[in-house]
């Protein structure tokens, strides 16, 4: 009945419709469940759709609307399946956690639940968030709603595809080296990684603890700010979490007068495909049209960021994933003959190839005799990358970069070569290494596929980033409704 278009509806509008009584929470939930029914067989964004939960909670919101007049009450959300949810299986897209039922709920999820959002389900990801295409999921490959033959990016590919395909109003993802921003870019939506520590990691199944950060994937910058408002905050259960020095504001900027934006020369020199480069340059021009000043800057240690990341992240992962040993929960191999056999077969059978590769890389990098040469040096590089940014931010307010070097690529085209997959993160990794907030917004199409424009700011500059992205978003006027084409079925001209 509602006539709502889930491919274009924003949380801002949905919230107004709910408050005005023009739509009920149950109708809103049904809009998304209907869309899931229509497109999920092709998109495969969800590992588990929580139909009962969505029905039950949306009805509860309608019944108790007065009492539950929370700012997010009734707005349907998808949650990446690496955040634990009490009573709903959480798998990390891994065989080793296939039937794992959490006994508690991640702080960030708890916060939105407490605001009475309605959870639609848990979304697909690369196993343990390790990947850039969601092809490393043990269960299914998610398709990009713009072209079903291409990948949605990763690792939060399920969350990004769900939002893009209108299967969720918005979603939570996690970003370790670009896992929110890269899929948001490839799926034509907004994705933000907040400052490290801004959102509690308690209940986020750790990949690389010093890099992981939860953030929103949304259809608009305003929605991104709205969701971010409700997940930030110091959590006594996460010693690395901090309170933001100022609250997240809902953005309203239309101009960028006087804003200084740095364009790092190093990135544009390195392998950005022409279509992406063209959209990026147009967007830089828009910054100046809106009154901003774009200047070329240098981040001299750029070339070392990717290799440093692929030491630090696997090293931390090798320890973080050691707890999956078959002793207390999760998958355990059949009939182990002794303890060692149980460890080896449980982990050998439970983890997929990319996870094993990273555990081995990380274990090697931390081993006696290699620590200094690998982990030690990578930490030095990390410090140098951080200093590059500090130096740059002495002269500019924000830094702009393409989010990804290319648009969405064909499924299966990079799986044989891990390095070609790792290169996808070249533009997003530096912000993780430096712990900085960064956003990706859609800035146009190249060959019919979305291009992402990334803004990186100093620590705790979320509001500056959101205002800037909001003004640009208005100027760009990107239509977020995807085409659902399938280039495999198209006849070559």
């Amino acid at each position, binding site marked *: 009945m509602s006539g709502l278009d889930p491919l274009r509806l924003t949380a801002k509008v949905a919230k107004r419709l709910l408050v005005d009584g023009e739509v009920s929470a149950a109708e809103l939930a049904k809009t998304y469940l209907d869309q899931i029914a229509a497109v999920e067989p092709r998109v495969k964004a969800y590992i588990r759709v929580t139909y009962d939960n969505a029905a039950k909670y949306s009805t509860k919101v309608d019944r108790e609307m007065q009492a539950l007049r929370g700012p997010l009450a009734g707005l349907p959300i998808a949650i990446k399946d690496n*955040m*634990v949810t009490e009573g709903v299986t*959480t798998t*990390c897209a891994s065989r080793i*956690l296939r039937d*794992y039922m*959490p*006994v*508690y709920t*991640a702080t960030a999820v708890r916060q939105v639940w407490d605001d009475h959002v309605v959870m639609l389900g848990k979304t697909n990801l690369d196993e343990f968030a390790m990947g850039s295409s969601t092809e490393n999921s043990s269960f299914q490959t998610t398709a990009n709603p713009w072209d079903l033959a291409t990948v949605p990016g990763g690792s939060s590919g399920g969350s990004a595809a769900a939002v893009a395909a209108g299967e969720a109003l918005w979603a939570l993802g996690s970003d370790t080296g670009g896992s929110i921003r890269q899929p948001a870019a490839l799926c034509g939506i907004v994705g933000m990684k907040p400052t490290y520590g801004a959102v509690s*990691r*308690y*209940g*986020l*199944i*750790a990949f*690389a*603890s*010093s890099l992981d950060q939860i953030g929103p994937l949304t259809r608009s910058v305003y929605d991104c700010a709205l969701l971010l408002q409700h997940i930030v905050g110091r959590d*006594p*259960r*996460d*010693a*690395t979490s901090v309170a933001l020095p100022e609250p997240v504001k809902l953005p309203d900027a239309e101009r960028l007068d006087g804003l200084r934006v740095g364009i790092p020369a190093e990135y544009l020199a390195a392998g950005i495909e022409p279509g992406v480069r063209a959209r990026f340059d147009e967007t830089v021009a828009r910054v100046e049209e809106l009154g901003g000043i774009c200047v070329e800057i240098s981040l001299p240690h750029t070339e070392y960021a990717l290799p440093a990341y692929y030491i630090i992240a696997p*090293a*931390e992962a*090798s*320890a973080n994933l*050691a*707890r*999956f*040993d078959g*002793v*207390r*929960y999760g998958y355990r191999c059949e009939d182990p003959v*002794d*303890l060692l056999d149980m*460890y080896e077969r449980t982990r050998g059978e439970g983890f997929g190839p990319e996870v094993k590769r990273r555990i081995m890389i990380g*274990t090697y990098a*931390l*081993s*006696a005799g290699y*620590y200094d040469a690998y*982990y030690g040096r990578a930490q030095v590089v990390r410090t140098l990358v951080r200093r590059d940014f500090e130096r740059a931010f002495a002269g500019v307010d924000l830094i702009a970069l393409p989010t990804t070097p290319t648009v969405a690529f064909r499924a299966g085209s990079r799986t044989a070569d891990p390095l070609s997959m790792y290169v996808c993160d070249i533009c997003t990794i530096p912000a993780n290494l430096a712990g900085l907030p960064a956003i990706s917004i859609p800035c146009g199409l190249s060959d019919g596929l979305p291009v992402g424009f990334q803004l990186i700011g100093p620590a705790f500059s979320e509001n500056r980033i959101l205002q800037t992205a909001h003004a640009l978003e208005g100027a760009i006027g990107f239509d977020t409704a995807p085409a659902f084409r399938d280039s495999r079925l198209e006849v070559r001209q």
Partner: protein
Amino acid sequence: MSAWEPVIGLEMHVELDTRTKMFCGCAVTKGDDPNSHTCPVCLAHPGALPVVNQRAIEYAARIALALHCTVQPRNIFHRKNYFYPDLPKAYQISQYDEPLATEGWFDYWVDGETLRCRINRVHMEEDAAKLIHAGGDAGRIAGSDYSMVDFNRGGTPLVEIVTEPDIPSPEAARELLQQLRNLVVELGVSECNMEEGQIRWDANVSVRPEGSTGLGTRTELKNMNSFRYLQQALDAEIPRQIEVLEAGGTIALETLHFDPGTGTTTPLRSKEEAHDYRYFPEPDLVPLVIDPVWVEGLRATQPELPAARVQRFTGQYGLSRADAVVLGSSASMAGFYEEVVAAGAAAKPAANWTMGEYLAHLNAAGLEAGHGHVTAERLAKLVKLVEGGTVSTSSGKEVFALMIEERAEPEAVVEKHGLGQISDAPELETAVARVIAGNPAQVEQYRGGKQQVLGFLVGQVMKATGGRANPQLVNELLRAALDG
């Protein structure tokens, strides 16, 4: 055997008596149902994160301060990686190259002589869970039918204390350990209950030619869960090393298991079990920044520790150093002694009675000072009775024994058993006359100028009165009778 000297270092682990665990809010308990004090953090469920227990840091810092260590203003936690079912995260959060506290010392006594042992470090970590192996042999995982894990202990705050290799003998190692345990107990941070494994230790030992300053290859000794076993293990290992070296062999750097049954040490870990712990900084915790003002606050509120108390006892009570060590090294004994003095007994006789009869009673009954069957107040009364001459010293000991037997006040015992000292001249004169009559030869000798015979005669009178005669008075009466 030519001259070799052992060099010993100790590594101790102490479970702290904090209310909650090191990195979560679960209660630290003993004896509750298995796995009744667990949570996502100490069971290492996916996504759970550690948060440091500040009270544990305080307790560890108190130990460090008592050992004259420098509490570092910034220290960090590391992950120590290895797989075992008692370690749910498959890494232990511990400290590595930036520990809580470094470079201190501990003074301890061996045969009244003070020895100093340098302390290398004091650091924080978490305890592993408890494994119970069912079936099979010797309670080990290999060969057992199945194993059970009790995670109640998992995550209990643990302090590791590492000494430098400064300990010169097995006996000194035992003394150091006992005295260090006392110190920790007195700090109120752990009861160090040995049956419950609240304090555990390993020893590193090597030998070298006497007088040389280098260090030989060491072995690590494990499984010594009593003070006696520590000494026995070292007593076994040191001659073994000397024998190997004198035969031209070399000592292998290895871990040895002490078997209390045979009193020998045997290699515990084979090479394939050698661990590479792959330490790296724990990214889930921020560096621990410790405010020096907070540390000074702790220092100012430390309880009086044994070394200081021994010093005070020599000054305040005029005790010899040896007596001060016996009475002052443990809080319970010192507390009892000071109660006796506070109840009015003179310091020196109070010391003699406490170290003599009272300590013998404690040892015989297997009790700790303060928990014996004679209260400080009663002992003080007895001391006063003896000092005041109401009871002789020898009768006093009998009174003490009867006070225990009858759980009675000393006055009542003296009254009931007629153990009061005889200071009544007429009554004693009869006994004196009888002794003079019965020992004519000695009387002759005395009168012939051999004064020392008087002592014999006094003894005879004492004997005749069942030790109750006032010796001073007997002396006077004898002299008067013999000289007169």
